[in-house]
């Protein structure tokens, strides 16, 4: 800080540098705002356009609504055929259950692989790690075949299986790396006090691992909420549609009624957008940790 101040003082001596600096400030900030606004613009555009009627929107796609109306929202929410709120609850249930299972399983497996010495330790570790390399879209067709043969398609739990499995490699890897950094004294002390393996695992290690488990949860909340391709092939029952599938029905059917589609998108995006803007700092930190270490 002190250094910076000293440097600015030195540069402030010449008027030319000051002007140059000022221009640079304006240019850089202008570009950054341009970038940020292009990122956020669709959200804003959808927010105010969804308050327009179709007729008004088609006449002027950019203008602000002169007579804001909630008619698009009421139409979508009152029409039973769309089942949009149902898709939101389906997605919420799938996401919450998947994330809980991912965190629990990744914690247990990650801990065991990091700490317990047994013959299958290395092979299991390699097996889970290999999962990170497998291009999961090559599994779409065979998973469809297996699931429909075994009657696993079209249930409330169907999507939990692929979502949890595909998230495990990265999550286990993160937990395993984290546990390795914890001193073993903790567990040794617990063992001397007569704590069983399970008690140590959930009573002592779990609280210590909280930061990495939060990271694991954050990474997977978004991927589970937004996942599309496996939901597309495994769920045919409209009562079980998740959010991306619920939105898919708007292709073709209403291609001309954009305000209505926007309203539908905003309703389904709302939980995740609110979650993001409320915790953006932690979320970004978690995503970075996941990407760089994974």
């Amino acid at each position: 800080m002190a250094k910076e101040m000293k440097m600015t003082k030195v540069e402030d001596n010449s008027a030319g540098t000051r002007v140059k600096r000022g221009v640079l400030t304006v240019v850089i900030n202008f570009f950054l705002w341009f970038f940020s606004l292009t990122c956020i613009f669709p959200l804003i555009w959808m927010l105010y356009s969804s308050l327009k009627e179709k007729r008004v929107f088609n006449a002027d796609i950019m203008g602000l609504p002169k007579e804001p109306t909630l008619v698009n929202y009421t139409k979508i929410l009152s029409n039973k055929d769309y089942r949009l709120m149902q898709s939101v609850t389906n997605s919420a249930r799938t996401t919450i259950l998947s994330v809980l299972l991912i965190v629990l399983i990744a914690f247990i497996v990650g801990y065991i692989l990091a700490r317990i010495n047994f013959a299958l330790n290395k092979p299991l570790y390699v097996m889970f790690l290999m999962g990170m390399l497998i291009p999961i879209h090559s599994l779409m067709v065979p998973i469809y075949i297996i699931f429909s043969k075994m009657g696993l398609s079209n249930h409330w739990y169907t999507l939990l299986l692929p979502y949890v499995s595909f998230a495990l490699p990265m999550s286990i890897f993160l937990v395993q790396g984290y546990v390795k950094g914890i001193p073993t004294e903790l567990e040794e002390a617990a063992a001397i006090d007569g704590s069983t393996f399970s008690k140590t695992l959930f009573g002592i290690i779990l609280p210590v691992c909280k930061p990495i488990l939060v990271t694991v949860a954050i990474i997977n909340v978004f991927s589970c909420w937004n996942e599309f391709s496996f939901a597309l092939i495994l769920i045919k029952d409209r009562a079980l549609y998740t959010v991306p599938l619920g939105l898919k029905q708007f292709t073709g059917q209403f291609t001309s009624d954009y305000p209505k589609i926007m309203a539908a998108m905003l309703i389904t995006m709302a939980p995740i957008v609110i979650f993001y803007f409320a915790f953006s700092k932690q979320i970004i930190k978690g995503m970075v940790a996941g990407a760089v270490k994974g």
Partner: protein
Amino acid sequence: MLKSIKPKKWVVAAYLAVPVALYVFTVFAPLVAALFYSFFEWKGGPVKTFNGLANYTQLIHDEVFWSAFWHNIFLVLVCIIGQIGIAFIVVLLINSKVTKLQGIHRTFGFFPSTISAVCIGFIWQMIYDSKRGLLNYFLEAIGRDDLKKVWLNEPSLVMLLVSIPLIWQFIGYYMVILLSAVSSISTEVLESAEIDGATGIQRARYIVLPLIKNTLLVCITLCVAGNMKAFDNIYVMTAGGPGYSSMVMAMYGYKVSFEQSNLGYGSCISVGIFVLALAVIGGSQVLMNYFMTDSYDRNERKHLKQIEKERKQAIKNRKANA
């Protein structure tokens, strides 16, 4: 590894049984299944006929599949340049001293990465729409009506048009990754370079870039893997059309398997996707390691030679002056 504590074997086994079973069932069993069914002629009905390698010979001569593969490669290249390149520039700008409200730029920039590809697809469909689209609206606003088009119907443009949403969506993702790497560079290094008179571009090229090399490699790997599995956006925006001009591998596999219900050939395509995606990811790793170390070494050597030359020149000059 713990030495003092040895939990009973059955306890460990009990904890591992369900996760391992689940994982093998959803990841490895399908791989084997795909391989198995790829040797059959099977249209989804009860009849399956073994036809040996016929599916594979068909795959090798299937022009649609190979053009889909090249479309994937196109996406990979465009996105590496677009996503990581733009992200790097944005990171440099955000990190400059004169930038205000860095947190807001980061939050806004990352936002598109958090919404579903289906939404992104819809949004960009609205932008490209011929009658009510933003793109044509702007062309009209700047008085270039002649450039207006039914954008997604142009076979020659469509790959570029579907890659723009992909780039746009993930700039923020690579931005936050690179940002965390750049902010871990000690400010002293940068400041001393500044005092020595290095311009912003020189600092970016000779200090920041080499120091975040490893993070860049991670980004490129993520980018390659991500674009080999492109599916959602394209499904929503064009479904591979017009014709096959925006077809990618996963989309083609989906079409063959579920729209033509040709599950035998679909399985074969899945095996093809698996092999090709692994090959491209592995190949890119090898290429990157070779290329990156090599080019930096080469530059380093060139740089050292340059310094040596200058030093000798200086000595000569001094001697001449004396």
